[in-house]
Structures are given as structure tokens and as C-alpha cells.
């Protein structure tokens, strides 16, 4: 169980709260969607849940223990842009083995061909690279996967292919999935449960104007 209790977070002491009193729980095998316009703290929440940021108040626990600080983190995050998430000087096979090595059948399912393994990231297209970034975290040690706009840069066909594979593997491994997207139709397809951050922030409609979003 991945548990977040009463999270509060802001990026600076004189800036408005980005995350206010937010609690959520994800059980193994759950698929939960998160939806909100830009500036409502979707990515911040994802980073808090994965331990990239520390909350000002409240805590994130995994099976009632805090997230591991040194060893492999069972809560993994996949971002929108794969080019920023991987080392451009490493070959694909080294990138894939950065955490725990992925299973071969997952690579096949994602359509990663063995000829890519000796190439460098700039020799693959964005869609191909995103598959590599996803394969990297789909190892059995990952228990919760947070997909932050994971397929927003990709064409419809690649998007459908990736989600088919990821949902399958999540079901097999009882992996909890948190899907962040602005695409309501995609979330309807993927998640039985959906969390709308806009309803929890009724008093701060101006956040979008205050925080830069690109």
C-alpha cells in the first residue's frame, strides 16, 4: 500500500502552497488517474509520492515504512520527455540496465528490437525512446509506477500500444499505477478511479498565472 497522508508542499517560503492537505492511498494492482489543468500541482504530487521531493508537512509511506533513501525505490516515475530522462552518452542496453534489468518478454511486448541495444539515444525517435524509458522501470522490483503525461508526446498508435502493454504487465505483477494526464478520454479508458485536483483547490484559481509552466 502506498500511502500519502496530509501532504503540504510549496517551492519557497513566500510562495503559495502548491499541495495542500492532500491524502491518497494506492493499493497493489490499483489504477488511479489524476487530472487537473497545468499549475495545479500534478507533477509536484507525483514527485512527492516518488520521493523526489520531501513534503513540508505530512508523510509518504510504503507498507507503513518510509520510502527507501538509498536502495532501489519501488515507486518509479516516468515523465513526458524521454530525452531528458536518460543519459544521452549511454547506449540503450546500458540505459535499460540502469536499475534492475528488465525482463526480456517485456522488451518484446513493447516492441524494442535487439538492434536498438547498441545504439545511442539520439539514433532513436521519441516514441522508441519512450518505450526504452518505460521498459527500464517495468522490472519486478517496481511496485508502483507513476506515469506523468507519459504518452502526451506520442502519436495515437504508439500511445495505444504502450498502454496496452503497461496495463497488462501491471495486472500480472500487481503493480499499482498512477496515471497523470490532461486527456480526459484517455483517463476514461484507462482508470476506473479518477482524482480531480481542481475540486480540492477552489480558492486558488490564480495559481496558473503565478507558476511558470512550459
Amino acid at each position, binding site marked *: 500500500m502506498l500511502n500519502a497522508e496530509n501532504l503540504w508542499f510549496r517551492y519557497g517560503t513566500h510562495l503559495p502552497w502548491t499541495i495542500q492537505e492532500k491524502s491518497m492511498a494506492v493499493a497493489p494492482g490499483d489504477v488511479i488517474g489524476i487530472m487537473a*489543468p*497545468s*499549475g495545479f500541482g500534478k507533477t509536484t504530487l507525483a514527485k512527492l509520492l516518488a520521493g523526489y521531493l520531501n513534503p513540508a508537512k505530512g508523510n509518504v509511506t510504503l507498507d507503513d515504512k518510509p520510502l527507501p533513501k538509498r536502495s532501489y525505490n519501488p515507486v518509479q516515475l516516468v515523465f*513526458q520527455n524521454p530525452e531528458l530522462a536518460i543519459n544521452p552518452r549511454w547506449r540503450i542496453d546500458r540505459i535499460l540496465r540502469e536499475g534492475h534489468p528488465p525482463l526480456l518478454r517485456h522488451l518484446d511486448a513493447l*516492441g524494442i*528490437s535487439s*538492434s536498438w541495444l547498441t545504439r545511442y539515444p539520439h539514433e532513436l*525517435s*521519441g*516514441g*522508441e525512446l519512450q518505450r526504452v524509458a518505460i521498459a527500464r522501470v517495468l522490472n519486478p522490483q517496481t511496485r508502483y509506477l507513476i506515469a506523468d*503525461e507519459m504518452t*502526451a*508526446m*506520442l*502519436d*495515437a*498508435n*504508439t*500511445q*495505444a*500500444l504502450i*498502454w*496496452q502493454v503497461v496495463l497488462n504487465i501491471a495486472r500480472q505483477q500487481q503493480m499499482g499505477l498512477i496515471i497523470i494526464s*490532461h*486527456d*480526459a*478520454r*484517455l483517463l*476514461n*479508458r484507462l482508470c476506473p478511479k479518477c482524482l480531480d485536483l481542481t475540486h480540492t483547490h477552489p480558492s486558488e484559481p490564480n495559481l*496558473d*498565472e503565478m*507558476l*511558470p*509552466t*512550459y
Partner: protein
Amino acid sequence: MLSISNLSITFTQYNQGLRRKHLHVITDLSLDVQAGEVVAVVGSSGSGKSLLAHTLLGILPTNAEYTGTLLFQGQPLTQKRCERLRGRAIALVPQSVAYLDPLMKVGHQVQRVAQLNGVSPAAARTLTHQTFQRYDLATNTQRRYPFQLSGGMARRVLVSTAVVTQADLVIADEPTPGLHPDVVREALTHLRELAEAGRGVILITHDIEAALQIADRIAVFYAGTTVEIAAAQDFSTGRLRHPYTQALWRSLPKNDFIPLPGNQPNPEQLPEGCLFSDRCPWVTPECTANRPALRQINNGWVRCIHA
């Protein structure tokens, strides 16, 4: 206004020392754009969408070579003419604020674009002011730096840079990914307005649904070639001609969400025949023998012998 026919782009690369290899990244691409219309270019990454924009702006890397005919306003578009026209008659709406100067206030940047188009400084200032007003940007926005803008404001500033140029052809490269639907709709409406004002607009995107909102015609790219050019209403009425376009339409979350297996062919090993033959459900021996030519069916163009 713009007509591209049989454009092919080849990259020459060195492979292990002095052995040269040629990568055919774009083969036989054709497209034309009339004044007052929005043409969307849709395709997956690596299908040559951005290279098309780079060709029109004359910013291809030096190891690229292209053949084919590029006509802009009836005259061939040579490298020299590209350099003279870009930023004046051909303008780019870039992808994000990362393309603006981070150390310069946005008002000055837009004003400078106008000045580079031969407008006097005073007139450029008024023009910038008018344009910002038109896009609902407060006057103090002019004094902000790019990092102080929200996603929606940034889009409006980027559109302003294209508007002050009086360009005839506007190329918008992936203007929408990762934005909230309302902001997307707003950004697209601005592009539509540019077309209504008599300019030609090329919208480069991977998002078919966004493209359908404003485009008159949609060109679908696959592996560096145009597989289909269809009117926007052909998508919803199910009159698509090419199997790839049909598969792309089916894979949308609002439709069946069923992907087509396989990958786009590698530019180093393009198939002999039809570029789509290895993934096509309709494939026959004739498909793998010859590359099909673009032909006209039902007021649209398709590159398939079975359509």
C-alpha cells in the same frame, strides 16, 4: 501558395571511418497549401514532420541533401530565397518558450521581430502593443521574462511573434502537447484566425484530435512520405482511404484504442515496395514489389494500390 512535390531528403553519414552511408529520411513527399487554409501534418515521431518545417525554413543540417520541387508563390524556393523569406514571408510558431531569449523581456522580443521586418521602432512598438491587446495579454506582460509566463500566456506570445511579421505562410510546430484542453483550443483558434486573415497555415502535430478541430485538410505522414491527404470531415465520416490512417484513427482513446503492431521502418533499411507493407492488413505480392504512387480518390490523395 506553397507546393511541394516529390521531395526527398537524404542524409549522408560516415560509418566506421570513411565508409559513407545514405539515410533516406524523406521519400516522395508531396503537399500543397493554399492561402487562407490550415493544413495539418500528422504522423508519428520520425515520420519527417519536423524535417519538412526545417526544409521550408532552410535550416537543414549541412549533411542533408534534397531533391524535388519546392514552389513558394510560384517561384522555386532555393536556399538563398529561404534565407531571405524566413521571418518575413515564412514564419515559425515554435513549440515552447524555450525558443525565446530567456534574458530579454517578451515585449522587446516581439517588437524586435517587427523591426527586423522593416517596421520603424515607433511603429513596431504600437504594433506589438496592438497585437498583445488582441491576444488578451495585459500591458505589463510586455515587461515580463519568458520564465514568468504561464503555459497559455506563452502560447499567445509565441503566436504574436508570427503575427507581427505579416508572413504569408505560418508553420506551427507541435504547438499543443502537454497543455490543458482549454489552452489547446485557444492556441488552435489563434491559428485558425491567421488562416481566416488570408495566410496559409501548416500545423505540424501528432495529435489528430487537435488537428481535426481547425484543419481544412490533413496530410498523414508515414516513414517520410505522405500516405494520405484527406479532408477533415473524412475522419469522422469513416471515408479514410489508407490503412495506416484508418489504424491511427482506430487507436484513439475515444475510438477502439487498439494499436497496430510493429514499428515504422528504419531509414537505413527501407522496404523495396510500399513503405507500409510490413504492417499492412491488406498486403499482397504487388505491394512488396513497387512503391505505389500518390493517386486521387474521392477528392483526396492516397498512396495505396488497394484503396
